[in-house]
């Protein structure tokens, strides 16, 4: 098992390394010079050149990368071009709101998606199956930014039940924190739940046709035991795969949902930093997000080993 875990961790290293290069280069391909933008319309050419030196972007691109990656390896994320704040401070302020949103939205997706998928898969062409079809149609058909605006309008502006924007830390005021989280998490989580439910339905439905399920039923086991103990467990590998891949979807969705609900998370930080050509903030934020994604997929890989002993043995 140890070798399996080690192997998976080692595989993650080149992924992170290549991602860092991609992130670094893509940003430099976007037109717009941070120094010219920062300098303002009154700046002379000399002042713009000075600012380039101040920001370190007067150096050749490979050297800029080596400096950045070297600093990153030592835990120094640098300083924001735009506001002069340490990037670590910006990430520290922005990561918790995104993680809260992602965790709650993800939990909501799991709580809705898996039971609904299992019920629909175990009972094809039943009311559960129709419910899933309807749910999928509505939630996937309406993009999260639109459902977010509708939710905001109904529940915040008209009914006044939830705040329209912002975030309160869970440790500061748990109730207010959940009030701020409810609508964004709902907007993000329900769409993810639909995808998860669809995959779960397919996986469970397929398993339900296998001989060993028929055998279990013939043994007189209850439907619940057959579904939970035999069908669901054996459906878990594709479900875990899609659930892990959805972490990327959660992160991408959070970017949009944070904009709609003015939640001060990583999504807004990245969007604004791209607009401002704040290279170090974007680079560091994306590396953190990629690391989370890689980390979750690593956990999923490890979960395969746990769920299926054949994988461990291989």
């Amino acid at each position: 098992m140890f070798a399996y875990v080690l192997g998976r961790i080692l595989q993650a290293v080149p992924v992170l390394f290549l991602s860092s290069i991609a992130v670094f280069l893509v940003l430099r391909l976007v037109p717009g010079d941070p120094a010219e933008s920062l300098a303002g319309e009154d700046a002379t050419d000399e002042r713009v050149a000075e600012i380039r030196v101040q920001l370190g972007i007067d150096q050749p691109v490979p050297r800029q990368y080596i400096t950045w990656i070297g600093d990153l390896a030592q835990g120094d994320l640098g300083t924001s071009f735009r506001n002069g704040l340490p990037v670590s401070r910006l990430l520290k302020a922005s990561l918790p709101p995104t993680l809260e949103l992602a965790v709650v939205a993800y939990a909501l997706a799991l709580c809705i998606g898996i039971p609904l998928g299992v019920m629909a898969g175990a009972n094809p062409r039943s009311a559960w199956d129709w419910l899933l079809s309807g749910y999928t149609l509505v939630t996937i058909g309406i993009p999260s930014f639109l459902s977010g605006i509708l939710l905001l309008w109904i529940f915040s502006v008209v009914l006044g039940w939830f705040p329209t924007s912002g975030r309160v830390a869970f440790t500061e005021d748990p109730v207010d924190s959940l009030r701020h989280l409810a609508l964004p998490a709902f907007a993000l989580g329900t769409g993810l739940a639909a995808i998860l439910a669809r995959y779960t339905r397919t996986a469970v439905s397929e398993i339900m046709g296998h001989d060993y399920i028929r055998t279990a039923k013939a043994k007189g086991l209850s439907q619940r035991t057959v579904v939970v103990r035999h069908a669901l467990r054996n459906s878990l590998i594709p479900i875990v795969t899609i659930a892990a891949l959805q972490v990327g979807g959660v992160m991408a969705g959070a970017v949009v949902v944070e904009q709609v609900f003015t939640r001060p998370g990583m999504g807004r930080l990245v969007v604004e930093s791209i607009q401002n050509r704040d290279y170090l903030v974007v680079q560091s934020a994306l590396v953190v997000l990629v690391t989370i994604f890689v980390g979750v997929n690593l956990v999923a890989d490890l979960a395969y080993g746990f769920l299926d002993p054949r994988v461990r043995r291989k």
Partner: protein
Amino acid sequence: MTNDMNEERLSRRRLLGSAATLGVGAAGLALVGCGDDDAQNGAVATAVGAGPTPTPSTEQPKKGGVLKVGQVADLNLNTGFPAVLLPQNRYFGYSGMESLVRYRDSLLPENVLAERFEYNADRSKLTVTLKPKVTFHNGAKVTPEDVFFGIDLMLDPKKYGVTGSFQLVTFAKFITDKKRVDERTMEFTFDKPRVNMTDFFAQLSVTHAASYEDLKVGKSVQGTGAYMFKSWTPNQGFRLEPNPNWHLTAKEGGPYLDAIEGKIFADQDAMGLAFESGDIELVMGINGTIAKRFRDKKQTRLAPKVGLAYVGCVVTNPMLKDKRVRQALFLALDRKRFAEEIGEGFSPVTVQPWPTNSPAFDKALEAPFYDPARAKDLLKQAGFTQDRPLKIEYSGTAYPIHAPVWKENFEAIGVKIELVPTEANQQTANFTARKFTDMFVAAHAFADLSPLTNFQQTFPYRIPNISYYGEPGGDTGQEYVAIIKELEGVDPASAKAKEGYSRFNKLWPNEAWLLPFQGADRIELVGDKVRGFGEYFLTLSQSPNFAKVWKKT
């Protein structure tokens, strides 16, 4: 046929409709480097246009309450604040920072931090004595060195690790010597007699030099004003608290609020929704489309005008070199439509840079100057031809609904246009690098100061940028340069100066290097419980008098 469009002005005035527009407040004027006392005149500048919520005379201000305000960009204290006042820093800039002198509702200065503010006879020297016992929010005494620091910062931003530049540097360079006389008195010597240096000092907010490094990262932001900077969470919001030792409490009253809490929004739509739900109670700068939802509730007001939004012409471009072509473009813009359809009728139809309080204000310029037939005629006279469409480069986020109207208006007179929406950041970079090909769009402020200051300080009027207008040596440039030179030697309020303003006002639509389409006004949303909001100071950039704001409970 004459090319003098001024002849047309009186007849066009009849076309002046009711109130017109705005939507450019949202365009985010980068008010760069702006900057009060014992009021001698004490008048109140009242906003025009929208439904105001002034304090009814029967209500007495009460202490307490938190004022929740909104803005769409995060604080940025590292690019020269407080000598640069970006819109995102304006709440603290307006409520917490002060200058030696300020303008209330006219260009008569009143002392704020200064007890004495005196020029010598030819205005080549200035002596300033600070009020005794005025302190920063951290308790440190305000000294001449703190005033000098603001000037040094503009002259050498690199030394202080600032990644920006300063519009006020033009004036800072006029100061050839600054001397500390005693712990409260300082003397400034200028390169030559300067008639408008008060504008500079009225825009120069004074901060504590010794804590500047902390200011840049938002750890400790020191001013002397009614509210103190308490905290800032990047990307989320900030909190300002009342200054218990404010030196102007006896005169202005207040500060009355327990705090001002700012929330940072992703965009104007989100901010409008938050205002509608009551999550925030004050917004300074929102577009007309959103603001119109609140007009019937009398929750909107318009801050006094500071300048214009314009399409600028690169006049060295062969297609735009002939002033008749530029005049035609000037006459092609349907300003009533911009004012009423896009600006939702918040501010008037105008082509004039000057606000009503300016000594250069010219009623004849408060007109649409819209005459497509004459525009076509002018193009014909000029023999205008195009081998390609003229490009208009503009910020796609600031002017998405204006752009099709520019194109439609210009194409209606036969000028082919290519709209080039540009990301706001790239647009600023293009300004810095002077990269525009044909035409570009921006808004300017500071027209509410001395007209000469507008010419010397504001981007599209400044001589080094006259490349957009023509060579200073050319015939048209010569006239403009001559006006500025004359104004440099006379009292800004004198009859001679007014003659110069009048000459400029004639030159303005004739040379048409800038094609104004709307006033650069600031629409504000003010909640029902907010009281005392509605008095503005000319400096800094039409700042509301936050000391008088209170909340009805």
